[in-house]
């Protein structure tokens, strides 16, 4: 646990970058410091590894003052990742990653073996080991930066806007990867960003700082969205925080119906029977494997079975993974669907049911009532989101594109 206790950073010219800041950063979780520029978030981060010396208060690492040990020993016990990776351009990728282990006195072979293991862990191809930084894309360099920070297996990871300089698609991939790595390693991560969406996506706890280095609110992201402490936090969160909060509600309890679902090889009689039974203007057609093909229009349904042709189908839009993705995803699917109905699928992409906007709205009301204003975020929902992101084909594709861009 890192305890930041009434910490102040006052520069000789009188500027106060951080003002009486107190935070308890729990072990094994991601704590995000977020705020506009000039709010002292980077300064706070750098005070933890003493790249900036505090002028008031104290910082305790596992109960011991950070000044109790030599500064370089302290720094080697903390991984540090920065915006442009800051790789050593004169060293190969493998030697960049092996830097801290080598400084800690590991022999070259052991350090390089460790570096290669880490390349695998952060999703870097082994063939890049002997390359130099200039030969890598921005996203790959940032992965090297993460691997280098993890090299000596430090319990603490400090990350200073690590994904700000890469394009949005690569950023999304890197964020998902960070959550995946964190699920495996359980580091104590302090993450600085100016992007509130990134903070909400990654943080187990989010500290919102305001200009002048004052803490505005320190809360789990779900609570931040549902109960912003003041107008500044509310303004900083943006206008759609209600929608965004739905990311923290699982779709598992959502009521689904299978009535309007029909397989492509059904007989005319079955179709007519289904149309009557469901009372819905649309039927969802699936292939023989149970994967969604599309919605039949009202005309087709009225005509009965014979007219079931795949070419005339309305697109079913992106389905949501039932129980894994959130109510926000379900609502998004329903809003984007031409029929107003969202398609729920299992891990294998087979339809498990469909649900209407009305049903989703009821589920949202139910979730709000159950959770109350100050609900806590479910860690499992976050892990599930990470997993979902990892299997998202669009993301896998962009990752392939990224590695191709070498």
């Amino acid at each position, binding site marked *: 646990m890192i305890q930041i206790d009434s910490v102040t950073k006052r520069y000789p010219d009188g500027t106060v970058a951080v003002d009486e800041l107190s935070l308890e950063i729990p072990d094994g979780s991601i704590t995000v410091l977020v705020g506009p520029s000039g709010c002292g978030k980077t300064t706070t981060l750098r005070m933890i590894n003493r790249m900036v010396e505090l002028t008031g208060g104290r910082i305790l690492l596992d109960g011991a003052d950070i000044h109790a040990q030599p500064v*370089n020993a302290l*720094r*080697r016990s903390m991984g540090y990742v*920065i915006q442009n990776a800051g*790789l050593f*351009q*004169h060293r190969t990728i493998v030697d960049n990653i092996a830097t801290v282990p080598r*400084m800690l006195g590991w022999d070259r072979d052991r350090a390089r073996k460790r570096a290669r293991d880490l390349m695998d862990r952060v999703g870097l191809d082994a063939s890049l080991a002997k390359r*130099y930084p*200039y030969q890598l894309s921005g996203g790959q360099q940032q992965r090297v930066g993460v691997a280098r920070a993890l090299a000596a297996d430090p319990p603490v990871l400090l990350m200073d806007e690590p994904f700000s300089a890469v394009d949005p698609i690569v950023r999304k991939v890197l964020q998902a990867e960070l959550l995946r790595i964190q699920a495996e390693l359980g580091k104590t991560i302090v993450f600085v960003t100016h992007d509130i969406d990134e903070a909400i996506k990654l943080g187990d706890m989010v500290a919102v700082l305001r200009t002048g280095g004052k803490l505005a609110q320190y809360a789990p992201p779900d609570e931040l969205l549902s109960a912003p402490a003041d107008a500044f936090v509310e303004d900083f969160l943006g206008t759609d925080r209600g929608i965004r909060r739905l990311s923290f509600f699982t779709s598992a309890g959502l009521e689904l119906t299978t009535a309007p679902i029909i397989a492509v090889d059904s007989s005319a009689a079955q179709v007519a029977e289904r149309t009557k039974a469901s009372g819905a203007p649309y039927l969802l057609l699936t292939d023989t494997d149970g994967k969604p093909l599309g919605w039949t229009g009202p005309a087709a349904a009225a005509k009965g079975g014979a007219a079931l042709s795949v070419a005339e189908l309305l697109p079913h839009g992106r389905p949501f993974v039932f129980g894994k993705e959130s109510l926000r995803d379900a609502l998004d699917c329903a809003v984007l669907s031409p029929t107003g109905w969202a398609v729920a699928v299992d891990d294998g992409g087979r339809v498990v049911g469909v649900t209407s906007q009305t049903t989703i709205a009821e589920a949202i009301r139910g979730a709000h009532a159950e959770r109350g204003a100050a609900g806590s975020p479910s860690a499992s929902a976050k892990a599930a989101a990470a997993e979902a992101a990892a299997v998202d084909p669009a993301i896998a594709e962009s990752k392939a594109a990224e590695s191709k861009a070498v």
Partner: protein
Amino acid sequence: MNAYFDMPSDLQHSYLGLIGLHLREALLPVLFGLVVALPVAQLCVRFKWLYSPVLWVTTVLYAIPSLAFFVVLIDYTGATETTVMIPLTVYSLVLLVPAIVDGVRSVSPDTMAAATAMGFGPVQRYLKVQLPIAVPAIFAGLRLAAVSSISLVSVGTLIGNQGALGNLLADGQFYHRTPLIVTSVVTTALLAILVDGLLVLIQTLLTPWAPRGGKSAGKGAGKSGRPSLLRRRTTSAAREPEPAAARAALEDAVR
């Protein structure tokens, strides 16, 4: 051919001997200059206010004619190689100090922050991060200094037999043997080109990490290396005719 390579006996050297002497008198000062420039440059990086006075001093020293140096030095070091090499060492500083300072400063703040955060102390950071990354910039300075030094050695003629190929040039004029003048000028130019090429080769071997060719350059990595290459081209072209300028100076001196 003998008209070109038959050395007058007053030179006390064979043709190859002259080349050896010339290279020694030209390159040792650059080496000494580097030894002096490295710590001076580091001080300039560490204490920013020091840089502009240091630059001012080196420039002023560069402006002192070598003849003036010789007049002062000859009382202490006599008409020896040392007397020639001291001013050359001093002259090399005006090129080497800024090259090293620029090179070390070109290391990106991100890289410096990363090094600090990984627990590099200031000395380790200088030796293992800043200096290696400054190599292309340092070599740009070294190449300039070496080529300029090779053309400047000729002034040793002013204090007797210490000008190596410069003495050959002077003898060519004195004995009215034009071929000797040609030999001197062409050899000096060739030495400059060869030494420059050798330094490029060494730099290439030292910096396998630097982007080369037309590939997309890494941030920062190319910055120090690339413009200096362009600069080199033009200067080495400008340097080659220098023996002619030296000859004019010598003619003045002989009179």
